Structures are given as C-alpha cells and as structure tokens.
C-alpha cells in the first residue's frame, strides 16, 4: 500500500496545527520565560487556526496514516467542541490565573497539548491511537490539576487523579492487549468487520469490560467516579471547567467510537451493563449533589449525573442515542464552561467564595451574571427553552425506542431531583439577602466568553436543528 504522506498530513492538519502550537509554546517558554501574555495569544491563534483548518479539510471521511486515524464528520464534530471549549477556557483562564497569582505560561502549553490528545481520540481508528490520546490528555491534566502548587488541596487533587488515572490506564492497556490477543488486530475498522466471530469469546469480552471500565473512569461514571468530586474541588477552577467539559467530551468521543461505531453490542448484555452504569450514575450523582454545600463539588456530582444521562444514549445504542449523545455533549459543554466561568469570577484569591451561601443576593450585585448563571442552571436541569432540555429529550427518546423505558423513566425522575440543587442556587441569587462582599472584577474576555456560552445555550434550545443537522451528518 502506497502512502501519500502529504495527503495524510493534510487530513490530520488540525491535530498537527494544535501540536505545532504546543511546540511553539514550548519554544516561547524557553526563550522568554514567564511570558504568560505571549503564550495566551499564541495558544488562541493556534486553536483558531486549527478551527479554520478543520473547516478547510472538509467533511468527507478520509483515513490517514495506515488507517490509524480517520478524518471526517465525526472527528470534525468533536474537534469543534474541543476547540470551542479550549478557546473559551483560555479566554476565561487568564483573568482567573492572574487573580490567583499563578499566571504562568506553561498553563497554556498544557491546555493545548491536552486538546491535541482529545482530538486524537476523535480521530482514532485504532486502539493504540485511543491509548495515545487518553494518555496525552490525562498527563497534561494531572499536572494542571496540581497547577496551584502552593495549595494543599490542589496537590491532593493532582495526586489522587494521577494514582487512580494510572490505575485506569492499566486496565485500558490490558484491555487493548486482550482484544489484540483474541482478534489479532487493534484496528477498530477490522475489529468491526470480524466482530461477529469474536463478540462472545471470553477473552474478547474481558478486554471489552476493561475498555468499558477505563472509559467509564474518564467520563466519571459510577462506580468509577469517586475521584471526580475530590479532584474537581481541589483543582484550580478553570482546570475543573476544562476537565468537566473537554475531558468528558473526549472520553465520550472515544467511548462512542469504540462502543457504538466499532462494537455492535446493541441489545446485548454489554448494553445492559452500560444501562446499569447509566442508572447508577444518574441516581448517585443527583442524590449526592443534593447534600453539597460547595458549588464545585455540586457541579462535580452533577457531572457524574450528566455522564449517566449521556450513557443512556450509549446504552440505547441506536441512531437516536447517537444523535442524543452528540446533542447532549454540545449542550452540556457550553453550559458547564459558562457556569464554571462564573464560579471562577466569584472565587477569591484564597479559593473561598465557592459555596451556595456566597451567592445569596448575587442578583442585586451582578444582575447580568446572575441572569446568565440562572440560564445555565435551568439548562442543566433540562428546562426548556434551553439546550439542556433537547439533550435530555433525545437521549430519553433513544431509550424508549430501544425498549429501555425504565431507564428513561429513571432519567426523568432523577432530573426532577436535580432541579432542587440547581434551582436552589437561583433562589439564593434572587430571593435572599446577601452579605454583599462578593467582589467580581471580570475581564472583557471573560464576560464575552460567558455571554457567548449563554447565547449558544439559548440558540440551541430554541433552534435545536442547528446541532441536529450537524449531528445527522456525522451518523
């Protein structure tokens, strides 16, 4: 087989662009130490150029590098999510890092490299590339979680994340090995072709179980979620934002690529396991979130719950489920970037002002931000006309069509529970008197990013067809 490296490079050019941006940032860092502002600009330009490239490459499916990766609508859809998340995160981070006194250029470097890892997951056509992507992403995040070196909680978060992440990686690699052992290949396309003859063999099934566990860990699904609350709480807030959005979307990019597009397990016990994990995540995530006082922790449990909702689509395993996952991810990602963005603005330099009570009377001091926060909370609770509603609608629809009505019912009931802790924040902001000592000095970039996120939430909630059309192209 003849290789056309130029074509391969062109097809993978968005990834190449992001990696190059990372390398340039390394150079910048070594030439002009501590030049946070320059790195900030370079990373934004790099990510934006990758965005231009992803459009330029087009959406015709093209394999590259010996079928290790494939460029196409799927990769494109997720890459857009990652790039938007990355850009919004960076725009929000600068002011936050300044306030926390940790504005150092390697932050941008790590974020950019993590994004390149996420993109690999969306492009992956081979389990080795999946592994590569997950590791590239995760290692950057272990460091980012501990970015606030002087704070104990941040170090604790990094260490916990690293220990358990390494544990999960072991299972991922072992699973890949077992699958290779039983099929003789790590290429997802070939596994899909010979799936019928392997699907029931015990070695293959054990491999599948290990992959499932590893992915479930990355997306923080029960019972592999225990790291999430501690890490989310301890990590710098904007890192948490990045973790709960980009990493989750990337985890699902890999999860869906492997479990929906390659393995054809729909309707089998594997999907029952997925359904069980989804159910447990929805219940535990939502119920535990009720008892939280710290908003970062609340959002951590909420992210566990949302992983559960997205897994409902995966468990259903049908076209609607696929559509639902894509829609849900888009809705969830923009909302969470916005919500964490507001948290990062309110947080003071000691890492305080993160509890529910700190938001009492917030609407009187910052009416615009309070309104946006309310929009995000309503969307998370799945109330129309915000994007979150349609995300839930599509995954529950998928469950009903896949004869998993119990799962859809459970989903609706647990959403009901979630309304309590989301709207509690809205009530505090609007109907309680506050102490009035919340000092918020947002940068223009931050306000713009949060406003943009809110705009998308409304736009996709009223005109879901924008995302639906894009998602249908992917299928």
């Amino acid at each position, binding site marked *: 087989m003849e290789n056309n490296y130029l074509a391969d490079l062109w097809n993978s050019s968005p990834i190449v662009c992001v990696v190059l941006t990372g390398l340039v940032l390394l150079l910048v860092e070594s030439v002009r130490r501590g030049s946070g502002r320059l790195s900030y600009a370079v990373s934004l330009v790099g990510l934006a150029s990758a965005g231009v490239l992803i459009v330029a490459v087009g959406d015709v499916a093209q394999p590259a590098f010996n079928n290790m990766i494939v460029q196409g609508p799927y990769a494109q859809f997720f890459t857009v999510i990652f790039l938007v998340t990355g850009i919004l995160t960076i725009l929000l981070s600068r002011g936050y890092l300044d306030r926390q006194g940790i504005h150092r250029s390697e932050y941008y470097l790590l974020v950019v490299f993590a994004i390149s890892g996420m993109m690999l997951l969306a492009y992956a056509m081979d389990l080795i590339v999946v592994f590569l992507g997950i590791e590239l992403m995760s290692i950057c995040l272990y460091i980012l979680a501990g970015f606030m070196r002087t704070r104990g909680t941040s170090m604790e978060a990094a260490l916990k994340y690293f220990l*358990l992440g390494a544990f999960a990686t072991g299972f991922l690699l072992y699973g890949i090995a077992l699958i290779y052992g039983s099929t003789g290949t790590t290429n997802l396309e070939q596994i899909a072709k010979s799936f019928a003859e392997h699907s029931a063999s015990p070695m293959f099934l054990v491999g599948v179980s290990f992959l499932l566990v590893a992915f479930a860990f990355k997306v923080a699904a029960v019972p592999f979620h225990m790291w999430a609350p501690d890490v989310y709480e301890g990590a710098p807030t904007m890192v948490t934002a990045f973790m709960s959005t980009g990493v989750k979307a990337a985890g699902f990019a890999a999860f869906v690529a492997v479990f929906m597009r390659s393995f054809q397990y729909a309707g089998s016990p594997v999907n029952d396991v997925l359904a069980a994990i989804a159910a447990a995540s929805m219940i535990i995530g939502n119920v535990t979130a009720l008892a939280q006082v710290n908003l970062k922790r609340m959002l951590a449990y909420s992210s566990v719950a949302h992983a559960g909702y997205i897994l409902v689509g995966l468990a259903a395993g049908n*076209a609607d489920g696929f559509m639902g996952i894509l829609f849900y991810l888009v809705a969830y990602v923009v909302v969470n970037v916005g919500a964490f963005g507001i948290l990062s603005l309110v947080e003071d330099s000691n890492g305080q002002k993160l509890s529910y009570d700190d938001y009492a009377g917030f609407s009187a001091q910052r009416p615009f931000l309070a309104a946006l926060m309310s929009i995000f909370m309503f969307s998370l609770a799945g109330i129309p006309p915000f994007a979150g509603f349609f995300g839930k609608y599509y995954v529950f629809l998928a469950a009903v069509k896949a004869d998993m009505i119990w799962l859809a019912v459970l989903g609706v009931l647990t959403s009901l529970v979630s309304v309590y802790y989301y709207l509690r924040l809205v009530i505090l902001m609007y109907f309680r008197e506050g102490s009035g000592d919340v000092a918020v000095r947002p940068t223009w970039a931050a306000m713009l990013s949060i406003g943009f996120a809110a705009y998308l939430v409304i736009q996709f909630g009223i005109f879901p067809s924008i995302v639906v*059309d894009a998602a249908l192209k992917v299928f």
Partner: protein
Amino acid sequence: MISLIPIVVALPLAGFLILGLFGSRMRSETVIGTLGSATVGISFAVASAIFVEMLGMDPIDRKQIVQLFTWISTTTDTPSSFSVPVAYQVDQLSILMTLIVTGVGFLIHVYSIGYMHGDKGFWRYFAYLNLFIFAMLNLVLSDNFLLMFLGWEGVGLCSYLLIGFWYEKKFTGDAAKKAFVVNRIGDFGFLLGMLLIFDRFGSLSFDTVFGSASVLSVGTPVLMWITLLLFVGAVGKSAQIPLYIWLPDAMAGPTPVSALIHAATMVTAGVYMVARCSILFALAPTTLEIVAIIGGLTAIFAASIGLVQNDIKKVLAYSTVSQLGYMFLAMGVAAFGAGIFHLMTHAFFKALLFLGSGAVIHAMHAEQDIQKMGGLKKYLPVTYWTFLLAAIAISGIPPFSGFFSKDEILWKTFSSPYGSVVLWGVAVLGAALTAFYMFRLVSLTFGGDERFGKHHHPHEAPKTMTIPLMVLAALSVIGGFVGIPPSLLGGNAIEHWLDPVFASANAKLGLGGHEIHAIEYVLMALSVGIAAAAIYASRTVYLKRHEIAEQLKNRYARFYNVLWNKYYVDEGIDKAIVNPTVLASESLLWKGFDVGIIDGVVNGSAKLMAVAAGWIRRMQTGVVQQYAVFFVGGIIAIIFWLVLN
C-alpha cells in the same frame, strides 16, 4: 421584493428586543415612542412595496413562500417524521392582513405616544406593542399551522400583558386572567385540531394539508371534527358565543390597546384562520352551518347588550363582538371574501371609534361613563367629527366603507345556497341595533347638554393623537371603494384580488361569480332604510326627547335589566362553572389532594433523598485506596455479568 418579507416580521421583533432590554434606561419618551412606531412604520412601508409589486404580477405568481430555516425536526428515518420550518407565505390574503396589521398598528403606535404620555411604564408598553405586532405577523404570514399557533399564542400573551398593563389595580389583573383563561379554552381546541390534522395528513404545512384535503369528498367526518376544533379556537380568540365574555372585560387595558388588539387585529385572527382554512371548512358543510349560526347569534346578541351600556368602551366592546359575528356569518355562508372585506373596513372604523373614545377619556380625565358626558362636540371638534364618520360607517350608510362590506355580507347571506332568509333577517335586525346604539353613543357623548362637573375642562388631544384619527377617518370613508359590487357598477376589486385564495373552496362548494338581481337593490334599499330609521330614532330619543328612553326603561324594566346585566351570562358562568371549580379546587384538590397526598409524597421523598444523600456521602471518604476498592468492585461485577454469566 417578496423575499423581503422576513424584514417586515423582524423589525417589530428588533423593536421589542431593544425596548425590552434597554427601554428602562431610556429617559426620553420621544426616543422610545419614535423607535417603537418606526419599526412598525418601516414594516408597513416594506409590506406596501411588496403589495404594489404583487399588483403588477400575474395572479398565479402572487403566492410565494419564503423559507427561513428548519425550526423543529425529528431525527428519525420514518416517513411520518415531523419537520416544521419557519417559513412565510405571502399571498393575496396574508399581504392584505399584513397591511392591516402594520398600517393600523403604526397609526395606533403613533397615537399611543400621546395617549401614554407620562406613564411610568411607557417603554414597557411599546415593547409589548412591538411584540404583539411581531406575533400577529407570524400568525398571518406563517405557511404552516405550528408557526401560526406560535403567533396565536404570542398575541394571546401580549393581550394578557397589555390588559393587565396597569397591574397595580386588581380589576385589570382579573380581566387579564379572565382573558387568558377563556382564551386557553379556545387555544386548546385549536391545538387539538392541529394534532388531528397532523394525525390525518402527516404534515402541518398549509400547502400539503390543503392539497391532500382538496381531493377528499364533501362531508368527510374527520374534516368536520378538525374544522369544529379549529372553530373552537376561533370562537375563543374572536370572542364569539359562548366565549365572548373575556372581551368586554379586556377593556381594562389602555384604550389604544383596545383599538389595536381587541378591535382591529387580534380578535380578527379567528376570522383569518377560518378564511385561511376555507378549503377545510368548505368540505365540512355541518361546520359551516354552525359557524353561520354562531356568527349570526353573536351579532344580534352582542348588539342588543350594546343598546343599554353606559361605559363608552363597553359599548364599543360589545359592538366589536357583534361585528365579529358578522364576519363569522360571512364565513359560515361561504362568503369568505366578503368576510375579509368586512374585517378590513371594521379595522378602520372600529380602531377609529376606540381611538376616539380614548381621546374622550383622555379629555375627561379617565371618566368613561357616557351619562356623565354630553356636549363634548365643541371642546373636541376633531374627535367629534372623526367619531361621527366612523359611526356612520359602522351603521352602513352609503357610500361609507361599512356599507359596502356589510351589504355584501347581507346579500351573500340572503342569496348564497348556504345562507338563509332567517339569518338575513337576524343580520338586518342586528344592523338596525348597531345604528341605534352607535348614535346613542354619539348623542350622549358629544351632543346635548353638558352633564359633567365644573371641575372638568375638556381639551382636544395633541397632534400625535388627532392625526391618526384623521387618517383612519379618511380610510373609514373611502376604504369601501375597493369593494363596490357589480350591482353598483363597481368591480369588487378586493374580492377579485382574494379569489385565488378561496378558489378551491368555492369550486368545492359550487359557488360562481356575482350575478345581478333586481332583488339585490330592494334588499340594499331596505337595509339602508332600516339603518337610517334607527339613526333617526336614536337621535330623536337621545338628543331631543330623553323622556322616551326613561319611559321605555320603566315600562320594560325586566327586559331592560336583562340587557343591562348582559343576560346574566357572567353571573351564570360564575355560578355554574367558576364557583364550583374554585370550591372543588380549594377543598378537594388543594387541601385534600395537594396538601395531603402530593405534599406528603414530595416531602416524604425529599426526606428520603436527604437521608440517601447523607448515606452515600459517607462512602466518599477521600481515601484513594478505598476508591480503588470500589473501582475493582465495579470491574469484578462487570466481568461477572458479561463473561461468567
């Protein structure tokens, strides 16, 4: 040009957004009022340009659909998948409605600048009014039922907001609630009709539905149900028996709102909807008959109440209900063009009457009782003359606009195979009552002696208010010339213009063109004569011989009381429906079911959740080794399930 129609719709929306978001910070009433009026004015200009262009087109090219984007679509692959675009259909009917809505709307916006001067909710008022125009344009321009329904609900919301505009007063809030609740009944009918249409035709687009319907045979049962349900919607929105009860109360809102929403535009939405669905109604003769009967009954019923009311706006409100009855009568006898024609002329003269009453109320410092007015002619000359012209127009005296449209309805009622002599008689009697109560209103308000206290110093309204009055007066006088029937040597331009819209319905019904009969002249003379007699009688009684009114009142006290109390319908509904509902809600649903069962379950499950949360939280110890244990437990469970099972 037609492709510019989205601009017509978008401008009022832009006005609403700007005023709604930033209006509270705008200090100047001039800026707010100009902005609010300009958006609608420019919309009107663009719509006029489109209309002029359409005039030059071949009739078959005049209908065009401008597609904007897909609004809602379901994902799945099945053929019955549901997809609704936001698309605007420009045709002879919708452009006419657009011109009425934006044209009359613009005049009323301008008028409002003067009328609402000094109100602390000035910006809010104009924001709502712009939102209303936006919703109404969606209603009339939509190319499918769902977008129409959005507009339908949108105008209902704006109506609610504007009726309750002065929300500090309890009765405005009550009136707004009443309007909303009664409208919900109608809306529910519309919604059910729409669902039935989708169930039956698999689409909500007008073209598809009407296309598939036109091959069905007359009297198909499902069409009867569809049209009846749609008509329930029309009855609610257009205030027909038995759902008219909200409209008189809706007069609690600012007077220009009554003119725009509760006379000229929104309440005619039901008429428009029936006309738009003419082919469906044409296939359901039973429904047509019901429409005609309800329309005729409403026309005379409301007119009779109008005879004795003393609140200037209440009289006009019952008059509106009655005139809407005429429009439905026209629809019911399959005279769709005549109904729309009357809708248009009514928009002119009824808007004028309301705006005139607004000028009177403005001059009298919120006094609305006509028994406490009189002799205002010399203080308010412009208002008086324009009001008088409108009164002549509504009474059906030639050559004013109301004559042509009302006479067309009367003639069609008489001559159409779907009409009847009885309905014609009812309509003529209604016309006589109309002329009588209108001139009672004119006489008591403007003529005779001054019956108001010395502390009142009535003064003519400012220019922003009188100019719209004069424009509308001109339209009330000449607006009928577009519909002069052949029998009077006219071309009936408006009905020819609308013909293509109703062509398929008329073909189904076997209705042809307009033939001239000698009897038409007789009937025309008769109805004009009766109206003139009623005017004469009214002027005699209320200007010269007041004692006649008193004598009649005393002699027929019982009858008078029935009319004065509006046939006790409100009281009846309170007794039969409202009170039992409130009682049942309070004792059974609230204190029994809600507090006992629902709250019990909710609080119980909330407690359960709190307990569960506390319990699960304890698993989260913060010890990494323990997390790893859960992790491994999970793996073992999964492998057990998948492999060893």
